[in-house]
């Protein structure tokens, strides 16, 4: 091909030099791929800690909520295994915990649920139970952390 002479410059025909742009785009792509984190997307589980620690004196005029006692879910660590207890009754599988919680939630969704895990229970299992409680529909799920 004949080398385009400099005289052709003022004629029409915008000649874009493609190669460097393709290089740029290509390198941008590479860098975006490189810096993209292959982390899974993180979600949040909100939890509200109790506003007050300990029991306030309720003798003077107990509100109607006292009639609904707390649903206490104990997560125990026995023989290197997680064992659950709902309101003092031993439960053998997470499914059953879910059933019971759903049963209670069907009656009253703002029942206070208290999760009380043992020290050695892994956080993953605790979050599992917490998750189940949220799925069951409870509004007020608290962790028993007061000593």
């Amino acid at each position, binding site marked *: 091909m004949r080398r385009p002479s400099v005289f052709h410059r003022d004629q029409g025909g915008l000649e874009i030099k493609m190669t460097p742009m393709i290089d740029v785009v290509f390198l941008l792509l590479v860098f975006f791929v490189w810096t993209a984190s292959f982390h899974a997307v993180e979600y949040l589980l909100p939890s509200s800690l109790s506003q007050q620690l300990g029991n306030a004196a*309720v*003798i003077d*005029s*107990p509100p*109607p909520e*006292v*009639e*609904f*006692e707390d*649903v206490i879910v104990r997560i125990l660590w026995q023989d290197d295994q997680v064992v659950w207890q709902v*309101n*003092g*009754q031993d439960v053998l599988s997470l499914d059953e915990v879910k059933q*019971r919680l759903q*049963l*209670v939630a069907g*009656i*009253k969704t703002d*029942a206070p649920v208290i999760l009380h895990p043992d020290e050695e229970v892994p956080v993953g299992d605790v979050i599992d139970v917490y998750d189940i409680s949220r799925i069951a529909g409870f509004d007020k799920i608290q962790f028993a952390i007061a000593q």
Partner: protein
Amino acid sequence: MPIRKISLTVLLLSIVLNGQVCAGPGEEAQLLSGLRERGLFEIAEYHCRNQLGREDLTPRERMQWTVQMVRTMAQEALNLPADQRAAVWSRAVDTATRYVTVHAAQAKSFTIPVATQAALVLAKQGEFLRLEAVVARDPASEMQGARDKLRIAAKELNELLQEVDVQLTMATNTTMDEALSQQELISIKQRLSFYLGSVYRNQAVTYPSGSGDRVAAMQRAISALKQPLSQLAAEDPLVVDIQIGLIGCHRELGQWPAATGLLEKLQKNTLEPSLQLRVRSEQVRLLLAQQELQKCTLLLEGPRSVSGVTSPELDLARLDTYIGLWQQASDEKNEERRKHWEQLTVAAVAAVEKEHGEYWGRRAELRLLEHAGSRGAPSNLDVLERTADELYRKENFIEAVNAYDQAADLALAGGFDEVALKLSYKAALVVQQQGDLDEFINRLVTLALRLRKQPTAATIHMLAVRNVAAVMKDDSQRQVQFRQLLEEHLQFFSKGTTVDQARVWLGAFVQREGKWDEALALYVQVASTHPQFPDVLQQLQLCWDQKWATYDDAELAQQPHPLTPVIDYCHSLMTTDDGQWLKSWDPVSRQAALVYSRFALRLPQPQYDEIATILNVAALGDTKPDGKWLSAANTIRIVALVAQGRGGQASELVQELSESSPQRWLEMLQQLAAIAQTSPANVQQQIAQLQLDTISELQGKLGEVNVEYRLQWDLLHADASIILGNAKSGYALYAKIASRNSERGDIQQRYAEALLLSNDEMRLQEALVQWRRVLVGHRPRTDQWYAAKFALAETYIRLGEREEAHQRIRYLKATSGLGNAAWTKKFQELLNRE
């Protein structure tokens, strides 16, 4: 037979002689044996230990001192009571073993004497076991244990013999500090043969008399004993020992000529005093074996001691003669002679112990026990018992218990139950003193049940029960045991105060479990003379109250009325045998009258007149009734009058009562309230009116009373007002009390219950709040907590908020469950209610 003792003596003396060959340095040996003879074992041991701790000890000296120490320990063990013996024996064996293991490498030949001592200790243990087996509970196993020990000893001695042969090939003729000389080794070998023979002889005696085993073992013993004879010089003291041993063997086998021949040969020699005495004792034994008692007596009339030396052997032979004569006399049924010989025997036993120490004393005792234990005549039992008492006094507790047991078994076999009871009881007491509570209780129970026909058996069983009661406070297993024992007691014994006591305790147990019927069945059987009878009546009333609460209306309308049993029972306590009222009333029957009246009031048609009459009669009598009873009785009378419509008389009675103390007023008002609870409605109203009247009248006269009194007074006032329908003032009073006593759970609960009595909406709302307070105050899943939940649900329904109530019940079901069966039923009912 006395022969066994000979073998042991031979063994002992041989230990002594052994010491003389490889004795400790010269005079020291004498000193030590002297200390041992006097029983000063600790000093002897201390001395040996000191010597062994010396720096400049030659190996030979070390061996000699070790030998001495082991011997001292062995002999100490012989003189201790059974429980301490084993420890010392094991100490002796340990010392010997330690020496052998430490010095096995360097001074091989020196280990032989020490090992011999260890084997001899084993032989001695076997011997002792054999002797004690006679009076043990399980002779066969003890004898087997003795045999085992002797077998091990024989084996060790055989091994040592072989070792000596090995050493002989290497030994020289001179006495050295590092090894035994040839001469010494030969002498040891001869000794070993002798010991072996003695052990075989002991083994033989463990077999039953006349059996093939015994004969075979005895033959073995004879050949072992004879073996060194050919090599020994005539003057060697070992020869005498061997010959004495041989005499014993022949005697065992019944070979009188051989034995007599040897004996005569011995007597021809001149012997030193102790040996002379031993020869004489052999003679006596031989004659005894041939049943020549007269000749024995003649022989024994000779001097007891020669040159100031006494022999335990001779004294034991003397004892055997006495026993033989005792036997003869009881066979001939010559009571006087028998007693004479018995006394002599017992005296001889005591003398032996006093003179020769505990070991010989024990052997003498064993002889006595063996003989006396073979015949169950009462006199023999007496001897056995006395021996056992002696043992106890000497603090040989294990032997004492064994002796008591032996005597008891004998008495049982002979049919002497009383004596058996006494002896078993003594054995149990000794065990208790030793601190073994379980064994003590077991023994008491076994003996009480085995001899339950005896009059004191019930008391003994109860003693066991009491002991368990003393330790059962926090121990649930003991409580189970206690209960079992009580049931056993009731099963086997039928009369007496102990049985009543058992009934009372068992009744309390059963009552705690809530089994009212069983408890009542037990309580009604208790005799009215029992000291705790008022308590029994009280418990009876409680049980009946509980039962009353379980009846529903249908059952109460039945004929005969369910309360008939209790009314009949109380009747029986208040009347004499021919159906008349008692003339003199004691507190027990008065109490019965009260119980009767209380229950009689609950019948559908109470006989008020009869009740009043009974109470009147009961108030009379020789002794004046106490104030409390009077006020209770008067209260019932008032209720009876009120129920009959005679209000005026009732008020008069009340006036009378106001003469007494404020305490009585409160009691009366409380009792009125209690009775009102179980009365029909109109009676309730009247009682409430009466209460109010009384309160308003006595209010001013109260004066200074404590806070609790005032509180109870006000509560009663409020209750009465509410029943009568003065709701406003009643509830106002209640509210005031409740707010002032916010920390008192019981008052809050009472207020909450009272609020439920009204139908006013405002009050029901207040009831909600109040029940919530009660709910928070109780622990979850307790009975009162469930009651509060139930009351709340009920209140919601009464307020018309069915949905709320249902939601709460369903919530309760999903979380904590509806409680036990009774509560579940109630909640279900609420759910189904329209």
